[in-house]
């Protein structure tokens, strides 16, 4: 029965997974009446499959639709399996009125399925509501100059004012058509008091340089955020604030969408200027420096030309320099940006290596850069000081001719390419160190070294203490001798074995001593009285047997052997 149930479930589940099996598409919204500044959560549920394409929702440009994620489900209810895929979207109305949303169309296995259509009524934000909202949060966009000249720097400022808690604030993508954009510092958060009310403000700025003439528009910037509303409290200091009608009927949080006003900008043309004008608009400075004025033929000096100012320098290129008897080699220009006041100051440095090819005094003409000053509404000219190069003969000039000489010319590169592939197969199996060596080096060698240290300590001890080796081996030899005792001369050999062991262990000649002498020695080594007595009894028993020519029975022998082993063990324990 149980097996049947499991099989049934598996078959039904597989049926449920079958593509396109009873596919239905349903579109649902949480409410179909919203305000212009509100958003709506839309769900498109595709039942009967989990492999549907992303829905295409018809909305007639009345809404902005943002992706809100996807989820899949499989349900088994009473043995019936259903699978579904849910697509979530955030819907932002673009204008007030009554609009159709949908149908949503999905494709499953090449077949298109359509959903229902939903009517959405978008009411325009009432003046009162709009005013109420702006009492708590609003966004503002401003521009430093609405009638700039072509290429002149203007500063765009976006500000988000709020005096309620806000989370998940997110800007929609934006672009400034007709402008070059440069960052103007990082986002700035600060507090501002307006008419006695403190506001939290988040602000960012961009430096814009118009590159198109005529009327340009900065489109509205959108910001979505969750406005957090606290629960109504009684008797608190802020009661009057939270009892405001704005918060009535709201839950914990509310998603709002804020929009800046579009900004119209009229870009003015620059009056006709000289041929040298290269499009720099805004105050600009010029610095020219040479690393050294005195050099030899073939030697190089670095010429640095630095332009800085509020003009757009990123695409600015220096006119080509054609100087007689001096060759120039360009380096990559460097750009740095800093903020001065509320303007972006860009610094572009051009470095050139100058290599003279003839001795004598060479006058380099001054640099001339023209720019348009929008404040004074006229052309300004920057002129550097002329540079004099004192070139002396180079004693190694003959070696340099292949580079800078006039008779021979340097090899001209006609093209460049990557290097050829490597053909040798031996290189693909290059020597690789086995990880075993690494593990051995990291752990094995230190362990071996530790063993070495232990062994060296033992050797040192043997050298410094002559009896150490004898003492440490005594018990081992004792056990060997005990095993070798014959029953024929048992008493003699047993006595000798025990005395030898005591002698080795306590560093005296046990073999040559009588039982009394042995006992005196044991006293000096502070053995317990009972142990001394046991040793004495054992030796005396052996002496009596040895000198009285007594025959020993096997049970007596076993008893004495076990006593001897027990004594050895105890002495070993006490002496170590």
């Amino acid at each position: 029965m149980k097996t049947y149930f499991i099989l049934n479930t598996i078959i039904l589940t597989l049926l449920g997974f079958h593509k396109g099996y009873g596919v239905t598409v349903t579109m649902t919204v949480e409410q179909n009446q919203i305000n212009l500044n509100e958003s709506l959560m839309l769900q498109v549920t595709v039942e009967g499959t989990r492999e549907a394409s992303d829905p295409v929702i018809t909305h007639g440009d009345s809404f902005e639709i943002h992706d809100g994620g996807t989820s899949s489900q499989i349900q088994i209810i009473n043995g019936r399996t259903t699978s579904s895929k849910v697509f979530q979207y955030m819907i932002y109305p673009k204008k007030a009125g009554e609009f159709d949303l949908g149908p949503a169309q999905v494709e499953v296995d090449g077949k298109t399925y359509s959903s229902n259509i939903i009517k959405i009524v978008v009411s325009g934000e009432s003046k009162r509501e709009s005013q109420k909202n702006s009492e708590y949060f609003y966004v503002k966009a401003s521009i430093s100059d609405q009638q700039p000249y072509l290429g002149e720097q203007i500063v765009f400022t976006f500000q988000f004012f709020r005096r309620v808690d806000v989370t998940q604030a997110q800007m929609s993508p934006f672009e400034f058509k007709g402008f070059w954009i440069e960052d103007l510092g990082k986002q700035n958060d600060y507090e501002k008091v307006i008419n006695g009310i403190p506001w939290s403000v988040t602000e960012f700025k961009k430096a814009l340089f118009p590159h198109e003439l005529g009327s340009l528009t900065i489109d509205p910037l959108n910001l979505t955020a969750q406005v957090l509303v606290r629960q109504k409290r009684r008797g608190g200091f802020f009661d009057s604030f939270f009892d405001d009608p704005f918060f009535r009927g709201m839950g914990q949080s509310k998603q709002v969408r804020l929009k800046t006003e579009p900004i119209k900008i009229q870009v003015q043309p620059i009056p006709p200027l000289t041929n040298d004008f290269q499009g720099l608009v805004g105050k600009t400075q010029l610095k020219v420096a040479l690393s050294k004025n005195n050099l030899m033929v073939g030697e190089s000096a670095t010429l640095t030309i630095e332009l800085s100012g509020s003009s757009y320098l990123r695409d600015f290129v220096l006119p080509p320099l054609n100087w007689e008897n001096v060759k120039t080699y360009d380096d990559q220009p460097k750009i740095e940006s800093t903020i001065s006041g509320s303007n972006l100051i860009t610094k572009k440095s051009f470095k050139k290596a100058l290599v003279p090819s003839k001795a004598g005094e060479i006058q380099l003409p001054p640099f001339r850069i023209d720019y348009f000053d929008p404040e004074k509404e006229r052309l300004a000219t920057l002129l550097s000081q002329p540079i004099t190069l004192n070139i002396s003969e180079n004693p190694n000039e003959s070696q340099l001719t292949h580079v800078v000489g006039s008779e021979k010319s340097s090899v001209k590169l006609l093209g460049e390419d990557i290097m050829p592939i490597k053909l040798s197969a031996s290189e693909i199996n290059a020597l690789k160190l086995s990880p075993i060596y690494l593990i051995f080096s990291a752990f094995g060698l230190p362990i071996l070294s530790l063993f070495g240290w232990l062994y060296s300590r033992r050797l040192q001890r043997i050298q410094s203490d002559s009896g150490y080796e004898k003492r440490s081996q005594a018990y081992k030899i004792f056990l060997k001798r005990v095993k070798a005792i014959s029953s024929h001369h048992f008493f003699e050999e047993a006595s000798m074995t025990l005395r030898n062991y005591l002698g080795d262990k306590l560093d005296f000649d046990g073999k040559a001593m009588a039982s009394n002498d042995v006992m005196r020695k044991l006293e000096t080594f502070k053995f317990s009285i009972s142990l001394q007595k046991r040793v004495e009894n054992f030796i005396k028993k052996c002496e009596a047997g040895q000198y009285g020519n007594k025959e020993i029975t096997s049970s007596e022998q076993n008893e004495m052997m076990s006593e001897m082993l027990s004594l050895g063990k105890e002495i070993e324990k006490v002496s170590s």
Partner: protein
Amino acid sequence: MENLLSVCMKTTIIMIFWVFISPIGLAGSEKFDSVEIFQSGNKAYQSGDFKGAIEFYDKLLKNGVISGTIYYNLANSYFRSGELGKTIFYYRQAIKYIPRDPDLLFSLNYARLKTEDKIEPHQSFFSKILEELQGLSLNESKIIFVSLSFLFWTFLTINFFLNRNYLNRLSVFFLIFYVFSIFIISYKSFGDDHYGVIISKKAKIYSGTGKNNINLFSLSEGCEFKVIDQSNGWIRLQLADNKQGWIESSQVLIDSN
């Protein structure tokens, strides 16, 4: 003490056997038709079939035959196929194994010249020192570590028995380099930048994970970056000039170390 010393002796013998005998066995089992596939890749490249060459070199890498030469040839094949991003990525992989190969360095520089984005790097003193270490491959760093480890522990152990001043000094001398080699190998194995390269022609960089975030800037194919974070098919990158943002992972190749 006796027992301990006997254990020490046995352990030493086992260790020596394990270190010097086992690698030979392992090396013998690592035979794959790598030479034939490598030569087929080379033939395909030379006959102008760069896609075919890529398949052969890829097959070698997928089968664990990894070397700087294969990465270099693979990068060349991608270059000829017009895929600049992958070219730079595989040249950088090759650098890990053959960091001083002049052909590789020239080709990588040449490929970098072909990229559109010019990024001025912000370099600290410390990062310059670390850059110098790029001249050593991981395998070379391991060999240096093993050699210094052997020298240090050998001199230290001999000194336990002979107790000579010069051995003491030699031990300290090798200890300094041994510690430095541990630093190098750790940096090479774990500290090296987790890098990536843009492989699509143009890629938008966003302020967060999702296309509804602000488009911060765009990058062109071949632009290299440091991987800071990864989340749900998005990668947080940092450029050499410290600009940061998120990019879809399908538009990049990243070094998985």
